[in-house]
Each structure stands twice: as C-alpha cells, then as structure tokens.
C-alpha cells in the first residue's frame, strides 16, 4: 500500500515537475529559514545553562536613584562579595569577577595577543560556576596572587606542544603570572568571556590602584552568588540591602542616592538584562520573539503554497478519489494517501532545506554576528526538530486536500464535479491574502529599519566622524609615552591634527558628578566626563559657541579650565551660553574645581537611542587618555595608517598597534539595529519569494481553469490585453486586500520600534504606499507569464478542450 502511494507521489513529481518544483523548493526555503531561526533561538536561549547549579546561581546587581535620575548597573563594589558571604547564611558561595576594561596584552615570550577574556576571579569560582578543571588543584589553583588558570585552547595558543603548568604568562608587559591549571573551553553561550582565570588576590597589588579590593562604593566588580537550595531571593535581597545601608548608607545619603540590590538569575542575563556595564552586548527577548514569529510565518506561507496548489489541482485529483472509492478505498485510506504524499514532499523539502541551511549559515552568521553550526551540540535534538517540522509541515500542507477531497461521494468525485465549489475558492483567496499580508508587513518593517539606519548614519551628529583614525592606548606605560607619540604623528604631512581623550564617540563614556560652586550642598548633576588633550574640538570638528576652548598658549588651561556643552548650560539653568563663561564648577567629594572657559555645540557621543547628555571637558594628564584621535587628509588615509604604525613600532615595540576609524566606531553602536535590518531584509526577501512561487503556480491553474471562459470571451471579441487585465485583476485584488490588512499592523509595530530611538524618522503614507505598489508590481510580474500565455492561446483550442 505504501509503495503504491510512494510511486504515485514520485510519478506526480515526474509528470508535473513545475508543480513539484514550486512545492518542494517553496517548502524547502521556508523550512531552511525556520531551521536557521530555530538554531539561532536555541542558541540564544541556552545561554549560561551549562552551569550545573544555574537554577540557584544569581548575579548581584544594583538599582537606585541619584539626583540625576535612575541608575541600574550590573556591577557592585569589590569589598561587598566576601562580606556578604560572611553575614548572609543563604549565600552558599560568592565569587567576584573582574574582566578587563578593554583587553589585556598577554605575552609568552614573543607570542603576544590582546585578550578580552582575561578575567580576575575569586578561588570560589570553581564552586559557583561549572568550570571543568582538567589540570591543577581546585582548592589552590586560584589561591595565590599571580596565578592563572587557562583554557585548553589558550594552552594550545600560547604553549603549543608544551605542558603549560608552572610556566609564565606576562600581562601588559609588566606582570608575570604562573599557570596553575587548565580548564575546558567555556561554551560560547556564556554572558561573559573567560579564557584566562587569574587569581583575584592579585588585585591586592596595584594593578587597579592601591586598596582596590577594599573599596566599598566603587562599582567596579561583578559579584555572583550561589544561593543555598530553597533560599528565597527576596529575603536575600533584603539582607543585601540592609548590608548596603549599614556599610555605605551615610556616604550614599551625602550624595542623595538611594540604592537597592536585586538578584538576576544567571540564565536570564543574556536575554533580559539590559543594565549599565554589561560585560558583553546581550541579546534581546524582543529579537527572539520577533524572529520566532517570522520563522512560523515563513513556514506557514510555504505550507499555504502547498495547500493552495493542491486544492487548485483538486479537480484533476478528484477523479482518482472517485476511482479509489469505487475500488473499495475507505476515507481514512484516502486521507492517509494524501497526507502520505505530502509527507514525502515535505521530507524531500527537508533534505533540500538542510542543504540550503548549510549554504546560508555562513552569511547568516556574518549578518547576525553569531557562530551557529548544524553540527553543534544538540545534534539529536536538532534532527528531532527538523523531522518534527517536516511532519508538521506535511500534515498542515496536506491536511486540506486530504480531508477536503476524500469527503466527496464517489459519484460526484468521478465527474470531477468540484471545479466550481465556492468554499474552496474562498479559502484559497484567504490564504493568498494572508501570504501577501505577511510579505507586505515584513517588507515594510525592513524598509523602516533601513530608513532609520540611514537616518542615523546621515544625521549630523555635531562632529565630523569621517577621516578620523582612532588608536587605542591600552596600557599605562603606553600612555606615559603619549606626548612623544603625538608629536611624531603630528609631523606626518597628511595628518591634520592629533589629540587624545579618555572617551570617544562609540566607546564607553564615564559620567561624573559635577556642581557649580555656588550651588546648594548636595545638588549635583551627572555629566559625561571627557579628559582630553588640546585640539580635541578642532580634530573632531566641533564648533565653539561661546568663550574659547583649551589652548596650549594658555598654560593655565591644563589646570582647572572647563569646557562644557550647550546641554550642560541648560542643565545648570544658566539661560545663555555667555553667562556660563567664568563660572566655577567642582567635582563633589574631590578637590578639583575650575573655571568654565568655553561652551561648545552639542554633539552625539552616544547612540541615537540615548538622549543627548550634558558633558564636561577638561585637559588632564596623559594617564587618563585611552584613545588617540588623528584627523587625516582625505585621500591619504592608507599612507597615514602605515606611517602612524611605523611610529608606533619605534616607540612601543612591545605593544600591538590597534586602530579603527571613528565612523566605524560610531556605526558599531547600531550593530544590533543593523543586524535586525539584515535579518528582516533577508527573511522578507524569502517570504516574498515563497509567496510569489505560490502565486505563479496558482496563476497557472487559474488560467487553466478559466481556459473555456477565455476562449468564449475571445470568440466574443475580447482583445488580448483585456484578457490579461481580466486575469490580473483578481490577483491585484488579493494583494490590495492584503495591503489594507497588513499595513496598519506594520505601522503600529514599527512605530513601537522607532520609539526606542531618541531621534527617529516619521514614516508616513508615502513609504507604505510605495511598498504596497512594489509588492503589487512584483506579484503582477509573477502572474504575467501565465496570463499572457492564456490570452495568446487560440480560442478554438480552448473550446475544443471541453
């Protein structure tokens, strides 16, 4: 029996290759999209689940209000961890972790690499996290200062063919660590990167300055806690809050801040935590949800193709149903046959889909910044999902013809008498409308994402981001020699100007509490703080609106002379820019204060998702500079890069030359938006492709069904163009209805997304109408081949056919 069905299915493919092609390819493309998204989502959802006790493993985070508004940070103070563990019994184990600010230079003799995964951790790390120690002693590996445990791949990188245990690694050309253990590599699905675990006791030495580990109000440490089984998070949070009030309460009060703690389940961090100072850029639940929806829609659209084409062909299949019933087939057997056929097709489609996935995964990975692979971890689960999807698709796609066709009484079926059935046509139209509605919505979303992105790209940020080379000063000893580096770079003919700063657009910017001298006690404002070299504003092309900026000619400018932006003038409520000149500002708590010498135009140092912040600029000593900014003449960028590099090599032979372009750094702030745009773009292309495949097939069957009508009309004198119009009209109508249904939904959804930007486009009727017309055009071109063919046919042939 099965062989009988199988041969029918295979012969149908042979006999109607076009039909089979549309079905299988459409379904395969849909499944491939579904598979890729499934891989992505499982990857996103699996973050940090590899820790054995992940269900009671939490990160301690802090939220609260200061006078300048709310703060929510993933970081805690260094002294908290051990003290909390001592006094709260529910904390089974606590570990502190300190990743690098940017990266560390790690060296083994002449092998030198910048490493982002060099983290300092307490020796309790092995109790809290599931690090798989393959060499070394769990208790002692991280006990002594300057010990480091490395991953297997780092062992292979720095000690190829050697035993690393007991050997030295040099950090930052200054600190020697001895390797005390080896762990297996961490899964990529971890919210922190750890290739080197260095003993936290090392930080008692002045890597981060003296007394670093005793600081109780410097949020510079990540603290994780393993709760004892059955412990209630709310109670623990309460006890941590008591601790905060008791230890740093008075200090907080003096700056008008109120802080409370909260525990973040470790598995939720990657998708749900969006605090300040996240270790790595996190994913978002929104992306997971919208991609899940897209995956289902694409799959559904592909299934609908199958249903549509199958029902369109039901006239020719119904005779077979009649015969089989006469020969003694029961309804269930016919249902089985149609479902079986559809399972065979969907299984073939699945095989093809796996091939497509292998083909498109690399481009998906580069678009989404992921590292997905078909042959990763959950192969069995993956195969299960694939087979499951094939079965569900086969069932959904085959169910309509199966249950619909098998229900006919044999006498009716034998006459092929269901051609004119109304219900069948209505459902088909509804499905087409659904397909095109989805396509239109997705395309609209893509267009809006790209419009917003190009808006952010082209928007005047208040500074000139082109032609600026950014060189990182990763290390204190590098920073010490900065003046020499600067002066030599300035001599390069193609270099317009050189400066340095503690912060640059696209990089992390520290906020400082600032208050005017005459302000009442405790009334501080939070300003973006920039420690800059001279020429900062000329290099970035930022205009001065009042007073003057720092100038080498005024020696006093490097001692307490401030430049602020217009937003800061507004923040302090000074009315006009001129009023600000000569006013004095101070950093509360510290002794630094100075006079405002100038006001500059606002510029966007952070992404346009963020509001424009007030900022303060002061010239400080080179140890505060992290980035050298070099403006280069247009056209000589390449030469400048190499010349700067050779200067770097001669001054800093021990350090790696790391540069980027300012415009790239700025664009990187929109990385997740760009990813979103690319994904939407790719998947909406697939959706419209599948929908058009289906439409093409449907158009051919409609033309076939209406052959007689077309023949009669032609005999009556209808012209070819009138026939084309007649046939296209229906399809245009479906697209029109789809457009009316989908565009309001897309409009609402995309406005929501745009609201996440502080500076956003308004998208109006124009965009929507353009997309609608575009889809209409594409669909008419799709059906054109069939309609023109039908209109050119000889009417005599058409009428003979009956």
């Amino acid at each position: 029996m099965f062989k009988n069905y199988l041969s029918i299915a295979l012969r149908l493919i042979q006999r109607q290759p076009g039909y089979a092609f549309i079905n299988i390819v459409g379904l395969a493309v849909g499944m491939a999209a579904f598979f890729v998204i499934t891989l992505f989502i499982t990857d996103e959802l699996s973050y940090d689940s590899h820790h054995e006790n992940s269900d009671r493993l939490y990160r301690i985070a802090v939220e609260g209000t200061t006078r300048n508004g709310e703060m929510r940070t993933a970081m805690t103070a260094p002294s908290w961890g051990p003290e909390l563990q001592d006094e709260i019994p529910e904390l089974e184990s606590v570990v502190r972790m300190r990743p690098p600010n940017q990266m560390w230079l790690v060296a083994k003799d002449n092998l030198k690499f910048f490493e982002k995964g060099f983290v300092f951790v307490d020796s309790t790390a092995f109790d809290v996290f599931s690090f798989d120690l393959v060499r070394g002693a769990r208790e002692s590996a991280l006990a002594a200062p300057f010990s480091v445990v490395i991953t297997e791949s780092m062992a292979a990188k720095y000690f190829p063919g050697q035993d690393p245990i007991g050997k030295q690694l040099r950090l930052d050309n200054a600190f020697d660590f001895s390797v005390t253990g080896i762990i297996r590599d961490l899964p990529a699905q971890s919210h922190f990167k750890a290739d080197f675990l260095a003993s936290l006791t090392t930080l008692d030495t002045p890597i981060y300055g003296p007394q670093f580990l005793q600081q109780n109000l410097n949020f510079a440490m990540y603290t994780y806690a393993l709760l004892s089984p059955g412990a209630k998070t709310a109670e623990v949070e309460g006890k941590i809050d008591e601790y905060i009030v008791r230890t740093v309460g008075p200090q907080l009060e003096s700056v008008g801040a109120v802080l409370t703690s909260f525990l973040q389940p470790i598995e939720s961090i990657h998708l749900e935590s969006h605090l300040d100072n996240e270790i790595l850029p996190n994913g978002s639940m929104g992306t997971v949800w919208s991609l899940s929806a897209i995956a289902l829609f694409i799959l559904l659209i592909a299934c609908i193709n199958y249903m549509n084409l199958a029902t369109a062909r039901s006239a020719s299949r119904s005779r077979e149903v009649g015969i089989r019933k006469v020969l003694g087939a029961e309804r269930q057997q016919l249902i089985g046959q149609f479902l079986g056929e559809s399972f065979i097709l969907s299984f073939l489609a699945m095989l093809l889909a796996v091939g497509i996935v292998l083909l498109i995964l690399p481009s998906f990975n580069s678009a989404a910044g992921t590292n997905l692979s078909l042959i990763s971890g959950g192969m069995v689960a993956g195969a299960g999902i694939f087979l499951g999807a094939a079965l569900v698709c086969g069932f959904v796609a085959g169910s309509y013809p199966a249950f619909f066709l098998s229900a006919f009484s044999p006498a009716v079926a034998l006459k092929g008498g269901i051609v004119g059935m109304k219900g069948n046509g209505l459902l088909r139209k509804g499905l087409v409308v659904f397909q095109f509605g989805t396509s239109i919505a997705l395309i609209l979303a893509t267009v809006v994402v790209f419009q917003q992105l190009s808006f952010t790209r082209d928007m005047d940020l208040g500074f000139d981001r082109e032609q600026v080379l950014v060189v990182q000063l990763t290390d204190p000893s590098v920073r010490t020699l900065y003046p020499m580096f600067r002066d030599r770079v300035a001599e390069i003919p193609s270099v317009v100007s050189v400066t340095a700063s503690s912060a640059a657009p696209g990089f992390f910017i520290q906020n400082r509490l600032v208050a005017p001298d005459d302000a009442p006690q405790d009334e501080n404002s939070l300003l973006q703080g920039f420690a800059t070299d001279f020429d900062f504003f000329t290099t970035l092309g930022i205009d001065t609106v009042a007073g003057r900026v720092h100038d080498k000619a005024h020696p006093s400018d490097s001692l307490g002379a401030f430049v602020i932006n217009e937003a800061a003038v507004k923040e302090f409520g000074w009315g006009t820019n001129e009023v600000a000149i000569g006013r004095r500002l101070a950093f509360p708590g510290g002794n630094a204060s100075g006079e405002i010498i100038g006001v500059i135009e606002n510029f966007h140092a952070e992404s346009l998702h963020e509001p424009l912040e007030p900022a303060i600029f002061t010239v400080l000593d080179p140890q505060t500079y992290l980035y050298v900014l070099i403006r280069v003449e247009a056209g000589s960028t390449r030469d400048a890069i190499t010349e700067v590099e050779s200067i770097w090599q001669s001054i800093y032979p021990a350090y790696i030359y790391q540069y980027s372009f300012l415009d790239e750094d700025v664009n990187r702030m929109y990385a997740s938006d760009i990813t979103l745009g690319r994904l939407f773009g790719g998947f909406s292309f697939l959706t419209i492709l599948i929908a058009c495949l289906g439409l093409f097939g449907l158009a051919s069957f409609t033309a076939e069904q209406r052959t007689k009508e077309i023949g009669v009309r032609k005999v009556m004198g209808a012209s070819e163009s009138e026939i084309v119009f007649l046939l296209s009209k229906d399809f245009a109508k479906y697209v029109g209805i789809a457009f009316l249904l989908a565009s309001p939904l897309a409009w609402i959804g995309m406005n929501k997304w745009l609201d996440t930007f502080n500076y956003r486009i308004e998208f109006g009727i124009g965009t929507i109408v353009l997309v609608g017309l575009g889809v209409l055009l594409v669909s008419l071109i799709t059906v054109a081949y069939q309609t023109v063919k039908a209109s050119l046919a000889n009417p005599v042939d058409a009428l003979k056919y009956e």
Partner: protein
Amino acid sequence: MIRLDKITKSYLHGFNRSFILRNISLDVQEGEFVSIMGPSGSGKSTLLHILGMLNEPSTGEYFFFDQPVHKISERKRTDLHREYIGFVFQAYHLIDDLTVYENLETPLLYKKVKGSERKSMVAEMLDRFNMVAKKDLFPSQLSGGQQQLVGVARALIMQPKLILADEPTGNLHTSHGEIVMDWFRKLNQEDGVTIIQVTHSEHWASYGKRVIELVDGRVERDELNPTQASAE
C-alpha cells in the same frame, strides 16, 4: 440478490424538487444479465450508482443479499461493495499514474490481500486477458479497448458476484466493444457472475437476458430479451 422497493432520487433546485428516479421497484436474481436502456437523462446512471452503493437514494429501500443497504453504516456498505461488486466505466477510470499491473493490484490492496496472493491473482488476470506483455505500461500508452479490458480485469480481480457496467462500450470501436461484451457474456454464462449494464444501444443491450427501459426516472419496460430467450 437485489431488491429495490420504491426508490426515488431527487435534488432541490431552488424551490423546485427535480426527480431523477421515481418509485423504482426492481428485483434482480443471481446470475442474471440485465441491460438498462433509456434516453439521456432518464436516470440510468443514477440507478446504477445506487445499485453500486456509490450514491444513496432519497427514499425507498434497497436490499442486497437481504441486507438493508439504506440502513447500514458507511463502513459496512464499503465492505459489501468491496466484497461483491465490480465496476466498469465508460471512461475506463484507470488511475493515470499507475501501471496496468498496479491498477489491477489496487483493489486487492484496499482489501488487504497478502503480497504473495496478490501477485498470483494479478498474474492470473493478466494471463487471462493476454496482457502480460503490457503490465508495465501506463493507461495513456494503451488503446481505448485495451484500457477497457484493464477496467474489466480490475473489476473481476476481486471475484465479485455482481458487475455493474456504465456504458462499458460507449467509447470503443465496435470491434473492441465486441471483445468486452464477449467477456461479459462468458463471465455470466461460465462463472455465473451477475451483470447489470447501462447502454444506449440496442445492439449492446441484446447481450443481456433481460432489458429494463427507463424513461424520465420510471421503469417503462422490463422484459426478457427475445433474442437471448430464443438463443437458449
């Protein structure tokens, strides 16, 4: 074998009910060879479909081997017709995508006959109808007459007690038609298979022993075939 009692079949057309069959009462004994005649639209095919349980009457009673067909479940009806009835159609109604062999095999599959037995039954049929050489051809590769022989062979393969033939020779050349009708006669006389055929033509009707003529859904004439009667 068959007893019809006051069978009617009607359809609603708007507010009008149009009758295809009116009060047909009929008995057919095992071993009969009946020809149903009548002009187009007289209800011949409908009557045949009702006899074959492909269609249900609007009112009236139908007994098949004393089973009340009008009352029993669809499943049971399928069993009855699987077991006892073979069909032959004017348009042959072979499955285009199956070979001759597979077409013959299909009813056996639905009857869940075992593989080895199936093979020998199909082989026997092919042999009987001299079609062994054609067993791997598709219907479209056969002439009309050959297709209809496959149709007859398919109807016979389940060894039915009753063959219902709806204008079996309607699409055939006369010479091919003769072959098919000779088969029917042979089956009727040698194997005792009951045959009810619908036909337009006096010539084909004359193969039957009994002729029923329908006009406007009524039995107009029901008599033994004079030529057949004299031949016996």
